[in-house]
């Protein structure tokens, strides 16, 4: 049923630390590796070694430059996948009942056997979290690795989403954001975790932690380029000092 559950006892999701992410794309690669082989249709790659490669990915890493009013610009690597929204517009628009939000843990999933591949859910999502697979013709999206997190055949340390497991920097955290005492909830509270596009009214479960403010050295030189100027000696040095005295 594509009606949303009124509330879910658990809100499983990700917390992504933009201060730490180094933009290595390891999370996206491991996501693709895990999700292309486990359940349902594989994630297509078209013209993979040709001139115009294109493929289905459930996680994509953008990089942004943020230019403050003063000081140097800052680069922010920005992984983006399904945010498992509480008020998920992708679920309610689905005509076949393939798209649903699980009542027990809040994970938004697609039943590929029921999906007719109309693409309306991808249009309804503001985040670009859903991609219609060009080969299988069904909608693919992040499952929060529902086939890992409850999988007792895996060692306990592997019972987390593939992207979280792969991150070499510890920028991705997985947990229950509905439990105010959970580790991820504490992180969000401490670091001021926020929602993407709150104006769209989707109430995302996933949260993003903002980059920490960069150090500003009050005693340091305002202009680093000055330090790089060569010291003048000899006649030019004398001229320089003479001009400085006159000026």
């Amino acid at each position, binding site marked *: 049923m594509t009606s949303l559950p009124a509330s879910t006892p658990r809100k499983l999701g990700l917390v992504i630390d933009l201060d730490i992410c180094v933009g290595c794309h390891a999370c996206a690669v491991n996501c693709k590796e895990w999700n292309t082989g486990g359940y349902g249709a594989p994630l297509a790659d078209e013209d993979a070694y040709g001139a115009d490669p294109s493929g289905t990915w459930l996680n994509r890493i953008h990089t942004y430059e943020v230019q403050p009013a003063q000081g140097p610009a800052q680069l922010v690597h920005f992984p983006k996948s399904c945010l498992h929204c509480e008020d998920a517009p992708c679920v309610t*628009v689905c005509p076949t*009942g393939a798209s649903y939000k699980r009542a027990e843990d809040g994970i938004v999933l697609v039943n590929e056997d029921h999906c007719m591949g109309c693409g309306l859910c991808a249009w309804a999502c503001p985040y670009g979290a859903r991609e219609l697979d060009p080969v299988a013709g069904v909608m693919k999206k992040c499952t929060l690795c529902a086939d890992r997190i409850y999988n007792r055949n895996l060692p306990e340390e592997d019972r987390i989403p593939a992207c979280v497991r792969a991150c070499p920097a510890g920028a991705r955290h997985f947990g229950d954001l509905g439990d105010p005492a959970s580790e991820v909830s504490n992180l969000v509270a401490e670091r001021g975790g926020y929602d993407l596009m709150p104006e769209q009214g989707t109430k995302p479960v996933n949260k993003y932690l903002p980059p920490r403010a960069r150090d500003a050295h009050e005693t340091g030189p305002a202009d680093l380029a000055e330090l790089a100027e060569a010291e003048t000696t000899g006649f030019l040095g004398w001229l320089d000092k003479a001009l400085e005295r006159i000026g």
Partner: protein
Amino acid sequence: MHPAPSIILFTVLSGIGLGQMTWLGLGIGSDAGAFRWLASILAFALTAGGGLASTGHLGRRENAWRSFSQWRSSWLSREACLMAAAMAAFGLYAAIWCLGGARIAILGWLAAVLAVATVYSTAMIYAQLKTVPSWSATPTPAMFLAAALTGGLIANGAAAALTGAPAPIGWAALAVLAAAGIAVWWQTAAAGANRGSQGSSLETATGLGHMGRVRSFEAPHTGTSYLLKEMAYQVGRKRAFELRRLGAILGYLVPLILALLALWLGAWLMVLALIGHVVGMLALRWLFFAEAEHVQALYYGRS
């Protein structure tokens, strides 16, 4: 947004067919034998043909029947259910009318209400998407309803002209005028409804606006993707002005002039009016999709 030919054909052709069903169901139009048959068959063929075309863009057509199941929550499912119901009610009404000559008013009214509700549901599929302001922050349902009811009247006029029955020419001219006015209303609203018009920006999309001005530095992929093909569509936009002029002239101006001329020169001009209207509406509906901007493209640095 990617303008899928199947959806453009569906919304235009089925819209006209459902508009025809509405007027015929309300008892408007001649009772002449040949007109009954031609108008009913045309209405049915356009609606069903558009419906079949609409499955053209589906990835898994064998699951299309499941779209009748989610009418409680989904406008697309409501559209499917209402269209099937409208065709069933109109089919029964038309069968009794064509074979027996009697118009069962209550059945006709039911078909008319279901046909109008179907067009409204189609419009709401687009109007519900907050992610596409040019559909959701504009009078899209009024525009779709006006187009369907006007197209239906022109098509019934053409069917009457071909069968020698009295054609509702004056009413068709009035409807074209009203529909053109609503189209201008929609276009005016759409002109200001770009992807950033409802408060979304790269700053809200990334949440980094408090730090400074945000610019896309590097995209996640060097090639293309479904996200770019489907929701950052830009091909052919540079010809938008010419196409819109063509659509406005063929879709509204030509049918209006032909309808007025038909009052003196004969109803046969309504056939040409229908052809012009269909071609013009296809052009305008292509622009409805191709020009619509999705907020998702903000992440790729589109403003």
